[in-house]
């Protein structure tokens, strides 16, 4: 008994070594960025890998003001928030319809939505761009919000449909007998009951929208989002690594905070998408 326990503990310890290395490889870049963001340009030249001896917040101030990260940050917040709210409303309604209502070509429609999950963004870039130009949506926040919504909607609809399919039909029927219209059923019953799935979706979609470069690079050519702005910093300030890393820290901070707050939800959300349906 104790022999087996010991052997098991040994196996666990050996397994911990690659895990530790993996964690280190994830954490080190963050440490590198934060550490160097706190150095002056001069300090960085002298010692790239050493700890910041005289930490300064100057780089953050510089990045925020001189490199226009304040404007980019706002653009990202508007686009992400707008897209996430729109995604939640639309996917919850679509999920309700696809899971609970009976209408012609319902299965076909669901199959089409599912199949669009399999088409990568890059493949549809040309028609996408032409459409955006034709609709005068380039360089507008609305344009970016709609683009994000369009590209991330299939997964969201799929997940909400899978979630709502698990709810008993009688709930909707009871509400119908109670005199609720379809919209009222959605608002009073489906939306509150969908909260667990919607929270997960909100987090996953926030990650996707906030971290996106490709779509926003195309749609927001004049007003950059934060991620595009950070990529541009690399070219503009290639000799100012501390300023650049400060930008990276500013861009990553909201997502890291979100991740720490909702770690469990993110993991379970990925599982919902994987197992159900």
């Amino acid at each position, binding site marked *: 008994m104790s022999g087996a326990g010991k052997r098991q503990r040994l196996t666990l310890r050996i397994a911990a070594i690659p895990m530790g290395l993996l964690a280190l490889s994830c954490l080190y870049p963050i440490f590198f960025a934060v550490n160097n963001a706190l150095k002056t340009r001069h300090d960085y030249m002298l010692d790239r890998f050493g700890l910041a001896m005289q930490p300064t917040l100057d780089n953050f101030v510089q990045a925020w003001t001189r490199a226009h990260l304040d404007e980019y940050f706002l653009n990202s917040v508007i686009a992400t928030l707008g897209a996430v709210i729109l995604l939640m409303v639309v996917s919850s309604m679509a999920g309700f319809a696809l899971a609970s209502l009976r209408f012609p070509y319902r299965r076909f429609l669901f199959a089409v939505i599912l199949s669009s999950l399999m088409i990568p963004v890059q493949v549809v870039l040309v028609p996408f761009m032409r459409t955006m130009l034709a609709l005068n949506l380039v360089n507008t926040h609305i344009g970016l919000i709609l683009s994000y919504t369009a590209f991330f909607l299939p997964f969201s609809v799929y997940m909400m449909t899978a979630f709502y399919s698990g709810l008993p039909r009688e709930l909707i*029927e*009871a509400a*119908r*007998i*109670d*005199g609720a219209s379809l919209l009222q059923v959605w608002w*009073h*019953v489906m939306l*509150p*009951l969908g909260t667990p799935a919607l929270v997960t979706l909100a987090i996953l979609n926030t990650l996707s929208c906030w971290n996106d470069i490709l779509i926003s690079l195309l749609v927001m050519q004049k007003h950059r989002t934060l991620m595009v702005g950070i990529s541009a910093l690399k070219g503009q300030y290639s000799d100012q690594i501390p300023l650049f890393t400060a930008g990276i820290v500013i861009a990553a901070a909201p997502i890291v905070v979100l991740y720490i707050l909702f770690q469990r939800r993110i993991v379970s959300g990925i599982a919902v998408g994987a197992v159900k349906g």
Partner: protein
Amino acid sequence: MARVELKQVSKSFGSTDVIRDVSLSIEEGEFAVFVGPSGCGKSTLLRMIAGLEETSGGEIFIGGDDVTDAEPADRGVAMVFQSYALYPHMTVADNMSFGLRMAHRPKEEIASKVGRAAKILQLEEYLQRKPAQLSGGQRQRVAIGRAIVRDPKVFLFDEPLSNLDAELRVQMRVELAKLHRVLGNTMIYVTHDQTEALTMADRIVVLRSGRIEQIGTPQDLYQDPDNAFVAGFIGSPRMNFLTAIVQAGGRLAFGGQEMDSPAQTPLEPGRKLQLGLRPEHLDQDKGVDLEAKVEFVEAMGSTAYVHATLATGETIIAERRSSQPRTGDKIILHFAPASARLFGEDGQRIR
């Protein structure tokens, strides 16, 4: 309160006919029970009255109004589901008042109606709880409360007691019957449990394969079934059916015995029939006797059900109240000829 009338109602899912040509009227204030084996269409019929299933053919009237194509909410019905279907994110009070809130009724009216229903159902102390914090029986009462609050013309119950344990089921059965007496509304109740049907119904509608087999009071169905299906479905344990051959002179040969036909209809010799004998009628002191060998005894305390084989090899179940035989014993079962029911090979009753 309202009369419910179905005129040649039918329903098909694709090419499958679930309800075929059902005509039926349920009187004002009546407690009607739809009963039948699973898949007989009883729930579908109820859902059609509720408006949850579209009607493929025929007409449905509630209180004289044609509601065949009306929305569920416009029919004046309230329904209690087997799964209760309580809104899990709402409190008991919110669950019960949902329908009134949807109808934009004034706050005072909602409060007084919810209060009255809570009082009738003894739910007053649970009004602020969520369904998850209630027991099965309490949830059931909330679901009934939600129906009462709407003041419907007709109550619809879809197997409301199936999810409760045996003891609670008996208790709720009594409470529902009391409720019907207090409220006086028309009630339609669906169950597969013939005990529930017999104990609660003013009238029972027996369904099979989407057709009505018989409509009648519990006594009618028990005493005077129209066919072998109803005779077998109503009563527990179910009626024994023995093959009987008509002899010359109209006598019947069955189970190694002979007797005069209990039916008035003249029977031609050689015809094969089914003789129905209820287990509880096989415990007489005299009458026709049937010799049987005991295979198995189900002791129920005050009574016992004896499973036995006859001379013809047919099995028979008989109730024994006084003496309880043992496996392997030879016993004589007595029954009064008048208690036997006769059915043709097609299952139709021969009177």
